[in-house]
């Protein structure tokens, strides 16, 4: 049973560019959450997708957008990259209807903005 997978593993971009990160949830899961983890910090919630809709959103600007596909996989898009967007981006999946379900995290995508 494959866990949460993310691609790519590493990414280098320059300021002003756009980036797309991808996530495949654990088998059987229908909800995907994205977190940003800056160096030396804990993860911070960006947004969560369920049934192809953004269900909740953290305190991130509109430059951060996402999408969920019918197969539950998800993309995180960041436009007009800033140096401060350099971080590890983590995807977590879970099953919405299961009370007390746990979020399972992928290995992350390391984004470096130069």
């Amino acid at each position, binding site marked *: 049973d494959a866990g949460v997978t993310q691609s790519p593993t590493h990414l280098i971009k320059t300021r002003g560019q756009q980036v797309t990160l991808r996530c495949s949830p654990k088998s059987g899961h229908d909800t995907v*959450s994205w977190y940003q983890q800056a160096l030396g910090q*804990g993860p911070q919630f960006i947004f969560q997708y369920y049934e192809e809709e953004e269900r909740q959103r953290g305190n991130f600007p509109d430059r951060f957008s996402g999408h969920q596909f019918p197969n539950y996989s998800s993309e995180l898009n960041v436009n007009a990259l800033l140096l401060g967007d350099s971080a590890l981006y*983590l995807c977590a999946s879970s099953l*919405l209807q299961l*009370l007390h*379900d746990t979020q*399972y995290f992928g290995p992350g995508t*390391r984004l470096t903005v130069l």
Partner: protein
Amino acid sequence: AQSVTQPDIHITVSEGASLELRCNYSYGATPYLFWYVQSPGQGLQLLLKYFSGDTLVQGIKGFEAEFKRSQSSFNLRKPSVHWSDAAEYFCAVGPSLSGNTPLVFGKGTRLSVIA
């Protein structure tokens, strides 16, 4: 707003010694609490979680944590540390009945293990 404080940025323990990592939370209602571990360059792995019931929770890899409402704490413990336990440890709180709500993480405690 809910928050999590991990007072210790870095802890060093000898292999075989006991370990306690501190976590304090701020939340008005009954919290749902988690401990995750992150090895270098890796994602987060769940060690244990607390939703209700017995305040002493057992997790994987020999870890346990105790929920103390009066102290707003959820400290992680292990009786005997192994070199492979060296990693970053994150405490997190989930503010709702469902584990699917956003987690609020502490800044983490880095554990080093020496021979």
